[in-house]
């Protein structure tokens, strides 16, 4: 039986797949991001932050890398239960079959375009499965949190930073 991606997600298979992988990946526990996970997150950042990131590819690459570092730091500050859940999500997204079936991204993350990744994000954002919607929410919050935590992103939004000079 060949399911279309949409059927796959809608039948709830996606959910049970996430859960069964979850059990398998649990053994890893809280851990550092792997190179593959960093690549995946970089692709997501590039799409989520499109519009905030500069066009110049080298600058963009550097800022995305800093944001991925920020995400890693933020994840390490969460409860162990949340770290485990996110570890499962990241671990799943870097598996080629899951990337293809769950995210609908045919190319390796490193080669996926902003448009392709955006389509995947939009799919999860408007999914009928709470699990995928919440996964989108986590990726959204982690990425924007890591981006706007850095003082060098404030000029673009006109935020002068905290008052200085008195303390």
């Amino acid at each position, binding site marked *: 039986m060949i399911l279309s991606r949409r059927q796959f997600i809608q039948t709830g298979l996606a959910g049970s797949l996430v859960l069964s992988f979850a059990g398998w990946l649990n053994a890893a526990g809280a851990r550092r991001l792997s190179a593959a996970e960093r690549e995946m997150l970089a692709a997501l950042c590039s*799409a*989520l*932050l*499109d*519009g*905030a990131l500069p066009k110049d590819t080298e600058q963009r690459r550097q800022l995305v890398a800093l944001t991925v570092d920020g995400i890693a730091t*933020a994840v*390490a*500050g*969460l*409860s*162990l*239960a*949340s770290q485990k859940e996110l570890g499962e999500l990241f671990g799943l997204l870097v598996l080629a079959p899951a990337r293809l079936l769950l995210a609908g991204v045919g190319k390796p993350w490193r080669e996926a375009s*902003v448009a392709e990744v*955006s389509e995947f*994000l939009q799919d999860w*954002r*408007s999914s009928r499965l*709470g699990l995928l*919607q*919440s996964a989108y*929410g*986590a990726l*959204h*919050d982690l*990425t*924007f*949190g890591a*981006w*706007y*935590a*850095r003082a060098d*992103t*404030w000029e*673009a*939004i*006109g*935020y002068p930073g*905290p*008052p200085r000079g*008195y*303390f």
Partner: protein
Amino acid sequence: MQDPIKTGLANGWKHIDASTLARSQTVEADVVIVGTGAGGGVTADILSDAGLRVVLIEEGPLRSSSDFRMREADAYPELYQESASRKTADKAVNILQGRCVGGSTTVNWTSSFRTPPEVFDFWQRQFGLRQLSVESMSSWFAVMEHKLWVRSWDTPPNQNNQVLVAGAEKLGIPVAGIKRNVKGCWNLGYCGMGCPTNAKQSMLLTTIPAALNRGATLYTRLRAERLRFNGSRVSALDCMALQPDGIHPAGKRVQLRARHFVVAGGAIGSPALLMRSGIPDPYRLLGKRTFLHPVVISSALMPARVDAYAGAPQSIYSDYFLHRAPIDGPLGFKLETPPLHPVLYATTLQGFGEAHARLMREFTHVNALLALLRDGFHPESRGGQVRLGSDGLPVLDYPLGDVIWEGARRALLAMAEIQFAAGARWVTPVHETSPGYSSWAEAKKGIAELPLKPFLCRVVSAHVMGGCGMADTPQRGVVDHRGRHFWLGNLSVHDGSVFPTSLGANPQLSIYGLVARNASLLAAELSGRPPPVIP
């Protein structure tokens, strides 16, 4: 800037950072208090003043004005539960709670309201709490208002709050100024990251230093794990030291023995401790009726700069929409404004890519209004249920049902109308499919049709209440009106978890007043002095 905490420590306060303990230990005291927030702070002050030997247990760190750098990147991981991203079990509600000495009071926004009269009436009718009324509580509120400098705030509201004033006045909706617990406030607007000027009269600067000056002991980075009990008495509290990251266990344990145990870990935290301990709960009430004041947000672009990060965060409110229907009718809501800082705003705001970036570029022109929905009064608004995760840490199930969404829709409509009346050029509910609207007519139509569901509509909370509700009998409450546990004689709960409903008002002063009363009763009992006269 002088740092009173550093001074106190230099003068010999007994503070033990459990992450540095070389070995496990056992400690004796008269009273052990779990949690150093609104409830724990007031309790420590009053009990130590009665001459009792008090030990405070806090899982967060001790931080003070010299650490408060007004940066979200430091403040959220250091001072909040789960780095300010605690969520309900389904992840549909983001929950802000403090986790540091002073608890949520160290990071709260200083709005101070007494418990509304209609709430006491409801508690009397539904939970038999006839001892609690406007009259019987007024002197307790007055004492705490005096102690914590709760005053009307006479500085003009910042532009963010001014939008609420302007829009509401145009529509004939009454607004009023919010009292704040501040002394010499610099009007900076960074209350949520810890007050850098020591103006905010939080527990960190008031009751806890008072207790430490009297010789109380404060443990930080120590998590209360389990109360041990024998028959109808608690005999000890087992605690687990955490590493400096506040997440991983450090391997050392502390056991505390005392005559009396006060649990003040806040809603979610307190019921979880009682559940982990297997405290008798024959009517299955523990952790139930946990309320959030679910908040929905409306974001507007104003023609002029708003700079919603600057100036006292909440200074204006409207209770107009709390009084449109009976308290147990369709959900009423309180209107206020939140402070906006880049991380808080960007993570809450819907969308991604260029659409998100475009809204962020207008950051300085954004006004946001929030509506706190008064949950827990409508018969179908029964709140959430705390349960324990596999690691023994709490998780909150809070179903967002139709009653909530119906109120949320009215709230989003009301806020958009106010924002347009104040001159907004564009308004959007914080909602994933809202296109945003450029006139009230458009918004009215659009919001009426918006699908309101978990994840699509952003819901947040900074007011967690309930879970160890008080009542007149053990059939409908975990503790009585004094916060005394119905089954274990030497156990009290002194925090926001004892409220049997939400409040329809920001909770801190309700907790200060009630706990001042209950800690005074307890102090009299434990020290053998005459009890305070209660009207």
